[in-house]
Every structure is written in structure tokens, then in C-alpha cells.
């Protein structure tokens, strides 16, 4: 209630103010307007890397890092960036952080870098990062923007971890390479680690979240 004067959030439209303090911003990114499950942004990588939980976690960390970094710098430069070229400036900042993370992976975790393939580079075109820079960091001070970046990155990472967990569990019977479902009574369903399984898993998880949120959303409408 304290932040009634805050402007309506650009990205979540009618969902009300989200520029108030750190905590509402955090909740916004993690739950109320989770970038992946609610706004359905950045699903390409969410589908592609979730065949193993480990990959999903690394990808989640990558996105948190890029989101926090790019939000911080976009916000720091927000008063000196000419409006017309702001997009290309944002892309340049994002690409810089993606390159940093990619070089780091290549230097220290070569196997992981190979497994993730082009998807690390594709964070540049991930709508979440760009969306947060455009919708939040351009209007807000640096620290709050960092919180927002972290919240959205975390929200993305959480959904990714859930999808990755179920796909690895059902697809191979393992979690983080440890056998959980014994081969004697559970036969791993290969489909889950193949492409169609990704679509089914994410579709069902979004539907479950919708069902959980359903009553809340309807109450708001009335």
C-alpha cells in the first residue's frame, strides 16, 4: 500500500506497481509475473537445455548472471543513452555479459560448454533479458534493477530446474546422474529427454501453474 504512487509496470501492464521496494520486485519476478511460466518469455532455451537437471542449473545461473549484469549497466547508463539507439546499446551490453559467461564456461567447464552448444550464445536473443532491460532497468535506479534482474533470473532458473528435474527423472530414472528410479520397476521413458518430451513437460507445468493461480486471477477480475 505504501507504493501507490509508483508507475504501473510496463511489462506486466495491469498487474499493478512493481517499482516500490526490493521485496515486491523479488516476488514479482519469482512468482506473480514469472517470466517463463506467466509471461511465457524465453522458452527456447527452457525447452532445449532441460534434458538434464545439471544443464538446466547451469543455464539458470547463466541467465541470473546476464540479467543482473545487464540490468545494472543499462540502469547506470539510462540517463545518458539516447532514446533512439537504446535498443542497440542494450544488445551490446547483454552480448558483453553473454560473452563473459561463455568464455568462462569454455575455460573452466569445457564439457558443459559443449553440451549447452549454441544456447549460451542465444541468451542474447532471450526475450527475458531484453524485456527486463527495456521494461525495468530503463526507468529504475541501479540497485533496484539488480534486484529485478536477480528475481527474474531466479524465476526462470526455478522453472527450468523443475522442468529439468522431471525430464531427467522420467527420461533416464536419474537425478544429477544418481539413479533414483530403479530400473527393475521403472522403465525410463526415452521420449521425455527427446524434443517432444520438452514440449509436453513445459506445457503441463504451465497448465498446472495456471490451475493453481486460476482462482486468484478470477477474483482479481471481479
Amino acid at each position, binding site marked *: 500500500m505504501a507504493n501507490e504512487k509508483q508507475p504501473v509496470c510496463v511489462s506486466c501492464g495491469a498487474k499493478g506497481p512493481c517499482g516500490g521496494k526490493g521485496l515486491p520486485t523479488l516476488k514479482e519476478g519469482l512468482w506473480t509475473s514469472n517470466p517463463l511460466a506467466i509471461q511465457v518469455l524465453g522458452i527456447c532455451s527452457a525447452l532445449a537445455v532441460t534434458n538434464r537437471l545439471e544443464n538446466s542449473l547451469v543455464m539458470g545461473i547463466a541467465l541470473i548472471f546476464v540479467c543482473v549484469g545487464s540490468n545494472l549497466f543499462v540502469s547506470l547508463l539510462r540517463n545518458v543513452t539516447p532514446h533512439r539507439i537504446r535498443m542497440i546499446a542494450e544488445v551490446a551490453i547483454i552480448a558483453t555479459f553473454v560473452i563473459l559467461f561463455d568464455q568462462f564456461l569454455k575455460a573452466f567447464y569445457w564439457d558443459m560448454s559443449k553440451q549447452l552448444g*549454441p544456447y549460451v550464445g542465444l541468451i542474447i536473443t532471450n526475450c527475458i533479458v531484453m524485456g527486463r532491460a527495456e521494461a525495468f532497468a530503463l526507468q529504475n535506479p541501479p540497485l533496484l534493477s539488480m534486484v529485478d534482474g536477480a528475481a527474474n533470473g531466479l524465476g526462470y532458473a526455478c522453472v527450468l530446474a523443475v522442468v529439468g528435474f522431471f525430464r531427467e527423472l522420467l527420461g533416464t530414472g536419474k537425478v544429477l546422474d544418481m539413479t533414483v528410479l530403479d530400473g527393475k520397476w521403472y522403465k525410463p521413458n526415452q521420449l521425455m529427454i527427446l*524434443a517432444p518430451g520438452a514440449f509436453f513437460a513445459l506445457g503441463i507445468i504451465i497448465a498446472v501453474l495456471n490451475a493453481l493461480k486460476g482462482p486468484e486471477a478470477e477474483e482479481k477480475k471481479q
Partner: protein
Amino acid sequence: MSQTSALVILIAAIFTNNILLTNFLGMCSFIACSRQIGTAVGLGTAVTFVMTMTTVLNYAIYHFVLMPHRLAHMTFIVFIAVIAAFVQFVEMFVERFSPRLYFALGIFLPLITVNCAILGASLFMIIRQYNFVQSVGFGFGAGLGWAVAILLMAGLRQKMRYSNIPEPFQGVPIAMVVTGVLAMAFMGFAGMVSIQ
């Protein structure tokens, strides 16, 4: 890899290694713009054209500028800049010389800059170490494959309007599940040709 002919790569990029259904690239615009067949055709055409051209351009830049000067770590930022500049250029060109085409495709062009399939195609081309002819085949095939997928999806979604979908599944979730079924159907092509 260097032995595969460009034609095989083209076929494989359309069917067995469809960039959307097996590599999940370009999902955002796929979900958002697949409600109408007309829109799907427009976007599909634009993506095919831009993807072919940018793959070729990026091939040239990577092998003749970045590699000789040991600038491989700059790949991402250069590729995205090339794509953005190319799309901008095409937009101006089309607007000047063919206003009709501009009205048909114009609104899709800005969307394409942020379409991850375009950047993805260029990155795959580098990772799989295609030569020039193979890159042309791959760029064209991947674009065509994306267009085929979004066209099929648009057709399905137009029919889906009349079906009774459970409430939580309405909108995006059912689109995902249908895409999953589509991906399964495309897996039927798997034995035909294969690239890594």
C-alpha cells in the same frame, strides 16, 4: 561432416533436424504469431529469406574477418549486429522499391531481429563446421523448416478454436502440447537422412 552434400543438409534441416521442433529455436514468435495462416505465411517467408542471407553473410564474416584476426570471442556480438543491420537494410530496401511487399512483410521484419532461430542458425553453422555451400543449404533449409512448422501450427490452431480445451490448458499450454505432438510426427522422418 565435410562430406555431406548441401542437398542432404537442406532436406535434413527441413525434416529431421527441424530448427524449431528439434532445436526449439524461434519459439517466442512461433507461439505468438501462429494464430492465423496468413500471418504464418508472411513470417515464414521473411524468416526463410533473412535466415539464408544472414547465414551466408555471417559465414563470410566469420571465416574472412574474425578467424584471421583471432577475434572468435567476438562472434556473438558481431553476428547479432550483422543480423540487426541486415534486417534494417532489407526493411529500407523493400519500403523503397516494393511498397506492396512492404505492407505484406513489413511488420514482421523488426520481429525477426530478436528471433533466436536466426542467430541460432548462424551459431549452428559455426559449431557444425559447414563449408560455404553447406552453409547456404543449411540456412535455406532451416528457414524453410521453420516456415513449414509455423504453417502447420497455424492450420492446427485455426481448427483448435472449435475444440473444448480444459481451462488451465487454454492458450500457451495447449499450443506447447500440440507442438509436442507435431515434433513427434516429425520424428517419423528420423531415419531418412541424418546430420549430427
